[in-house]
C-alpha cells in the first residue's frame, strides 16, 4: 500500500474532528503514482484477486473443459485431452438421445421444484414475519423455533429427514398410515414419484426461515405511524398488509426472490443427502444430474458443457429478472 513515514501518520486512538490547522497533517499521503491509478481501484485489488481465484479461474477452466473430450483417460493430464469443438454441447442438447433427454427431463424437474419451493418459502416467510410483528407473549420463543432449521447443520438435518421418510420405520409413514390411516398402504417417499414431494418438503423446511429472517428485518423499517394512520382511516388488517406492508417490502422481496431462486435452482446438498449418488427420476435435480455426468460417469467434458449451459441459463434469467424489477424501482431509494 502507500508508504508514509510513521511520524506523519495520524496518532492512534479515537479520532476527533479535525481542528483548524490539523487538516493537512491528518490526511493520508498518497504517492502521485498511486493517485494516478486511482486509489479506489487499488483498494479493490485484494477482493478482485480472491474473486479471480475463487470464481473466475475455475469458471474459465470449466468453460475450457467443455470443449474437450475429458474422460478418465485424460484426467491426469487434461491439457492433452482432444479438442471436440461443440460435440459436448451437441450431446447435451440432443433431446432425441438419452443424454440430452435425461438432461431436459432434469431441467423441467428443477424448474418445477424451484417454482414450488420459492413460492412456498416466500409465502411462509412473509406470513410468519407479519404474524410475529405484533408483540405478544412467547414471540421470542416462536422466532427461535422458526429459525431453528436455518441454524442446524444441513447434513444432520437432511439425514434426519431421510430417516423420517423411510418406508418401514420412518416417522412420516408412522403418522399418516399407522396413526391417521390416511393411506391404504405404506407409501415410499424416497423412491418413485413421491420422491419429488419429499425433496420439496425438505427444501422448503430448510429455506423458508431465511425468507422469514429477511422479511422480519425489512418490517422493522416500516414506520408505525403509517399503520396507526390507516387504522384511524378505518383500514382492516388485510388492507394494511396489501397497501402498506407489501409495497414497503417490495425492494427487499425483489432481491429475496432472486436469491431464493438461485439457491434453490442450484441446490445440491438436499437431494444428495436424501438420495445419494443416484436420485430417482422424479427428483433428478440438475445439480445432481451434472454431478453424476461428471463425477460418477467420469465424463467431465460433457458435465462441463452442461454446467456452461446452466450458467448461461441462470445469467439470462437473472438479467431478465433484474431488468423487469428495476423498472419499478426507478425513482425509489433502495
Amino acid at each position: 500500500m502507500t508508504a508514509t513515514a510513521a511520524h506523519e501518520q495520524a496518532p492512534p486512538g479515537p479520532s476527533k474532528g479535525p481542528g483548524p490547522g490539523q487538516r493537512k497533517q491528518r490526511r493520508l499521503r498518497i504517492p502521485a503514482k498511486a493517485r494516478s491509478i486511482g486509489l479506489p481501484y487499488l483498494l479493490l485489488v485484494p477482493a478482485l484477486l480472491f474473486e479471480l481465484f475463487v470464481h473466475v479461474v475455475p469458471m474459465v477452466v470449466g468453460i475450457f473443459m467443455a470443449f474437450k473430450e475429458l474422460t478418465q483417460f485424460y484426467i491426469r493430464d487434461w491439457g492433452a485431452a482432444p479438442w471436440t469443438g461443440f460435440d459436448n454441447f451437441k450431446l447435451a442438447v440432443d433431446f432425441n438421445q438419452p443424454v440430452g433427454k435425461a438432461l431436459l427431463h432434469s431441467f423441467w424437474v428443477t424448474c418445477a421444484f424451484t417454482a414450488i419451493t420459492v413460492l412456498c418459502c416466500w409465502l411462509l416467510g412473509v406470513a410468519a414475519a407479519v404474524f410475529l410483528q405484533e408483540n405478544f407473549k412467547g414471540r421470542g420463543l416462536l422466532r427461535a423455533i422458526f429459525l431453528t432449521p436455518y441454524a442446524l447443520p444441513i447434513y444432520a438435518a437432511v439425514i434426519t429427514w431421510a430417516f423420517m421418510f423411510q418406508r418401514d420405520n420412518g416417522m412420516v409413514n408412522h403418522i399418516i398410515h399407522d396413526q391417521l390411516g390416511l393411506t391404504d398402504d405404506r407409501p415410499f417417499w424416497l423412491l418413485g414419484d413421491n420422491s419429488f414431494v419429499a425433496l420439496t418438503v425438505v427444501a422448503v423446511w430448510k429455506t423458508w426461515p431465511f425468507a422469514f429472517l429477511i422479511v422480519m428485518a425489512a418490517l422493522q423499517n416500516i414506520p408505525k405511524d403509517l399503520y396507526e394512520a390507516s387504522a384511524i382511516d378505518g383500514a382492516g388488517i388485510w388492507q394494511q398488509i396489501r397497501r402498506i406492508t407489501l409495497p414497503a417490502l417490495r425492494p427487499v422481496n425483489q432481491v429475496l426472490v432472486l436469491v431464493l431462486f438461485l439457491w434453490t435452482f442450484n441446490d445440491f446438498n438436499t437431494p444428495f443427502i436424501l438420495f445419494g449418488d443416484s436420485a430417482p427420476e422424479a427428483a433428478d435435480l440438475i445439480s445432481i444430474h451434472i454431478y453424476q455426468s461428471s463425477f460418477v460417469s467420469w465424463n467431465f467434458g460433457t458435465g462441463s458443457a452442461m454446467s456452461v449451459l446452466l450458467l448461461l441459463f441462470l445469467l439470462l434469467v437473472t438479467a431478465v429478472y433484474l431488468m423487469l424489477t428495476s423498472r419499478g424501482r426507478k425513482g425509489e431509494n433502495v
Partner: protein
Amino acid sequence: MRRLRAAATAVTVVTLAVTASGCGGGSSAGGGSNNSPRTLTYWASNQGPSIEADKKILTKELAKFTQQTGIKVKLEVVPWADLLNRVLAATASGEGPDVLNIGNSWSSSLQATGALLPWDAKNYKAIGGKDRFVETALSATGAEDKDPAAVPLYSLSYALYYNKKMFADAGVSAPPKTWDELVAAGKKISKGGKWGLAAEGGNLSENIHHAFVFGKQHGADFFDAAGKPTFTSDGAVAAVKQYVDLMAKDKIIAPGNAEYAQNQSLQDFANNKTAMVLWQAAASTFKAHGMKPSDYGVVPVPVPSGTPDTGKNTNSMVAGINIAVFKNTQNLKGAQKFVKFMTSEDEQKLLNKTYGSIPPVKDAQQDPAFDQPDTKVLRETLVNSASPLPNVPNESQFETTVGTAIKELWADAAAGRAVTTSSVKARLTKAQQQMPK
C-alpha cells in the same frame, strides 16, 4: 505452478454448481522417484466397524513397519463413499498419497487413468513375486492385456447366510442349494411380516454384484470381448429379471428392501425379520447385533443346478480390496517395501482375521482362522467358483448405470408395477445408451 493448479482443482470441485469439473494435471513421467525416502502417505479404505477402529488397528501395524524400515507412514482412513472421488481428485491434481487401497473392481477403470504404478515383473519381484497370490484374486487387478494396476490385499466373496431359528419355525429342513430351492424355502417363510430373503435395492454396487452373477449363470456377460457394453443381450435381461423377480414375482423379498442402502438387511436378519441374506462377510456385524455364530448357518450362494463351479455355476464375484501405488510417488522403494509388508504372511493373517476377510496370499490362507464355518465357505467360493467383474475401463460407469437401472426396477416391483422382460430391457437399454461412447 502445480500447487496453484491443485488449488484450482480443489476450488473447482467445491464450486460444482458453477463448473462441474476437476482439473490440474501433474503429469509425472515414468514410475516415481526416491526423493523423500523417509516418509509415506497411505490412504486405507474403511474396512472395520468405524474409521476410529481402523485407525487403531492399522496404527499398531504401521508402527511395526516403521520399526523395521525407519519409514514413517502418515495414515488416513477414507470412508467408502468418498474413496473413489478422492482417488479421482488425487489423480487429476497429481497431489495424492504414495500408497492407497482401492475397491478391486475399480482396478481397470483407474488403470485407464494412468495414475497407478503398473506391477510388471520387476515391481512384483520387489514384493516377493506374483505366485504368492491366489489366481482369482489376481484376476481382479486390471485389464488382462496390461500389467496389473494393483496388488490384492483383502479378498472376499459372497455366501448365503440363513437364520436357523426362522428355518426351523417355517419347517425348512435344509439350506437351499439351487435357486428353485431358495424360492420354495422363501415362500414357506414369507408370511406374517417375516420374509425369505433380503436385498439392498438402493445400493448400486450390491445390485451389480448380484446381477453379474445371475448373468454368468445365464451365460451372459455385460461387456463383449472388445469392451463394448452388451447390457441388452437376452441373457443379461433374463439375469436382471430373475433377480428382481425375487420380489416382483416370487414375493420372498420385502418391498421395503427397495430403498435399503445402509445394510439394513443385516439388522432385519438379526431381528428375525428376514431369514436369508447374500453377503460378503457378515459375521462381525451379526455379532454386533447380538447374534451368536450358532444362530445362523453359512452355505455357498445357490446355483441354477448342481454344485458351484466356474462358468454357468459361478456363484460370486471376486470381491475385495487391492493396494496400489501412485505413479508419481516420491518414495518408490519405500512404497514397494510397504506393499511387501502389508502382503507378508504375518500381516495378512492378522489383518484378514481382524476384518473377517480372506487373505489373497496362499501361505496365509492355511491359518485355521480361515477354516471356520463361514470363512471356509467364503474361501472355497473364492478359489473355485468366483469370477472377477468385467475388467474394462468403463467398469465404474457400468456400476452406476446398470446399478441405477436395477434400483429403478426394485422401485417398480415394490410399488406393485409390473416387471416384465420388456420393462427390464427398456431400463437396460437406457443404461447402455448412457455409457460413454
